[in-house]
């Protein structure tokens, strides 16, 4: 175990997988200088400019060429820089990467990791702050991962690189500096599709992912002070999501709150809430609640931006209202 930042853990994952498998390479803008967030720091020096490839500002072709390179037998790690810019590569991601294996009747595989730094950071406004993970859960062919801890960022990124299907890999921009214990082993893999029980609690199951796991943990502390036990499930992978763990937790707590930073309307919280409503409504003793952002573009000005953030206090007051009913 070493204490690493989220960013360093991701770096380590890429480096280990590149050492292990000569077909793995990374491409995107500015990678040669370590990437915008330092998440490729030092890799050029070890692996050279062919495998840590600087690209032009051509998101559509960064993605499309990665599909071709994957079909040709390599395993690209594709850097989209900001999740917002992935919108420039949507045909390539959704119509090509996600569907090629199926459309071609299984003749080919598209092993890709599509890294999308996401979420509100600081005063970045409407085109640099979005959380669009829900979109990808709606697209057959895609795996969607959104790790929170540094250890998971190592273990899940490694699993994503080894996965033979395209993985949308969401890293929250506020997480880069987050530190935590990370296993040193280069075979440390965290399986895709398995959630993590981040905190035990008896009164309410809070399902969340990415940066919101940390915010939820703060809320749980506040709740504990009031004698309320929040169980936090860090979903980690959004598709496929770990229904078993969520359902098992709900058997115990009988109350569900889903929290995400993304816009609430049409967010992935709706899928979780709907699924639980379909299958477990009769077991719940409080109305299901979702907590996401208002359906508003993200503002630049700090107080307006902050208005859109999920805070421990907002979570707590929602929890209290659920327990109260």
């Amino acid at each position, binding site marked *: 175990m070493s204490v690493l930042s989220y960013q360093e853990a991701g770096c380590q994952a890429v480096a280990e997988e590149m050492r292990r498998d000569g077909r793995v390479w990374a491409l995107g803008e500015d990678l040669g200088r370590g990437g915008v967030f330092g998440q490729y720091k030092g890799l050029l020096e070890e692996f050279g400019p062919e495998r840590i490839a600087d690209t032009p500002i051509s998101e559509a*072709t960064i993605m499309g*060429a990665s599909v*071709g*390179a994957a079909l040709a037998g390599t395993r690209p790690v594709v850097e989209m820089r900001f999740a917002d810019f992935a919108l420039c590569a949507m045909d390539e991601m959704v119509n090509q990467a996600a569907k090629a*294996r*199926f459309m*071609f*009747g299984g003749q080919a595989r598209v092993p890709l990791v599509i890294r999308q730094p996401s979420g509100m950071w600081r005063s970045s406004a409407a085109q640099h702050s979005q959380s669009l993970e829900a979109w990808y859960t709606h697209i057959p*062919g895609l795996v969607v991962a959104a790790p929170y801890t540094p250890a998971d960022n190592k273990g899940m990124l490694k699993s994503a690189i080894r996965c033979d299907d395209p993985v949308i890999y969401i890293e929250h921009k506020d997480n880069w500096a987050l530190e935590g214990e990370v296993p040193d082993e280069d075979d440390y893999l965290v399986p895709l599709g398995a959630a993590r029980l981040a905190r035990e609690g008896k009164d309410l199951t809070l399902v969340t992912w990415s940066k919101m796991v940390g915010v939820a943990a703060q809320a749980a502390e506040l709740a504990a002070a009031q004698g309320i036990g929040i169980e936090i499930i860090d979903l980690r992978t959004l598709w496929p999501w770990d229904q078993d763990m969520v359902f098992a937790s709900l058997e115990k707590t009988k109350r569900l709150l889903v929290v995400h930073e993304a816009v609430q309307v049409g967010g992935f919280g709706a899928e979780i809430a709907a699924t639980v409503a379909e299958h477990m409504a009769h077991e719940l003793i409080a109305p299901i609640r979702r907590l996401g952002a208002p359906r508003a573009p993200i503002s630049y000005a700090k107080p307006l931006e902050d208005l859109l953030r999920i805070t421990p206090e907002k979570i707590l007051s929602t929890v209290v209202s659920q327990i109260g009913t």
Partner: protein
Amino acid sequence: MSNNSSHNIDRDRLVDLYRTMRRIRAFEETAEAASLSGQIGGAVHLSIGQEAIAAGVCANLRLSDQITTTHRGHGHCIAKGTDPGAMMLELFGKEGGTCGGKGGSMHIADFEVGMLGANGVVAAGIPIAVGAAHGAKLLGEDRVVVCFFGDGAINRGPFMEGLNWAAIFKLPVLFVCEQNGFASTTHSDAVTAGAGANARAESMGIEAFEIDGNDVAAVDGLVGDLVPRIRAGGGPLFLSARTYRLKGHTSVDPALYRDQDHAADQWRHDPLKRAGEELRRLGLSDDELSAIDSAAEGEMRRVSETADAADHPDLAHAYDDIQDIGAPVWEAGS
């Protein structure tokens, strides 16, 4: 650079090229009939009139070389070596099709022969071809990737991005632009600024060639010069092939937006007719030519009959090959 002079070609090679073209033509005519009869459900984009490009280009490729193509890609597949039987099964949406019936005409692929897929999205195959070449370079394989696309595709961003990418990474790609005059019902010229595809390629520092795409010997000859240059590591090259879409955009399009006299007149330049005349000049008898023709037509008739009689795909495999984790599970009776 322009190269329009007919190439010196030996008879046997021209016979082979002619046979490939005739097989494509027969395949397309059979598919057209099956589409009009309702045996084929999906859209069928015929390459009738454009066979010389497919035949002339692919005759210069190795099995390990790769291609990507478009919605109008049957000819490229056949020329690259895909089994027309599997292709027709695919068009019929039947078991045994190239993609098990999951793709249809616009998504035919045959990775065994280096056919990396047709595409239903205009220009989308361009970055994919470029990426396949990027992959080959990274893996140290000496393959060449040919990227076929239409004159309508050069107005989409990924075309330009793909050219820039291939040039800066010096990738082994041959871009082949099939200039058939149309993008669906639109005259390509009306929506294309400047001097056209080659000027755009040259602006990226990519050497570009133009050729009469209905002259199969010329295409063959020129591509025979270009492919080794690419394989030797010289970077991408670009070829514009002038041709004409003798049919409508799809099998059911009467193409009334064309000048009908002009369209009818284009049959004079039918690449099959021209190659046939050349073969006769080179001494092939009418009987020898008809033997090739009827062999091709017989082959495609059988292929179509087989496809018609074949089974639909087994529903139990409906959800195979979506993704390893998180795919739906098929249940009988669902």
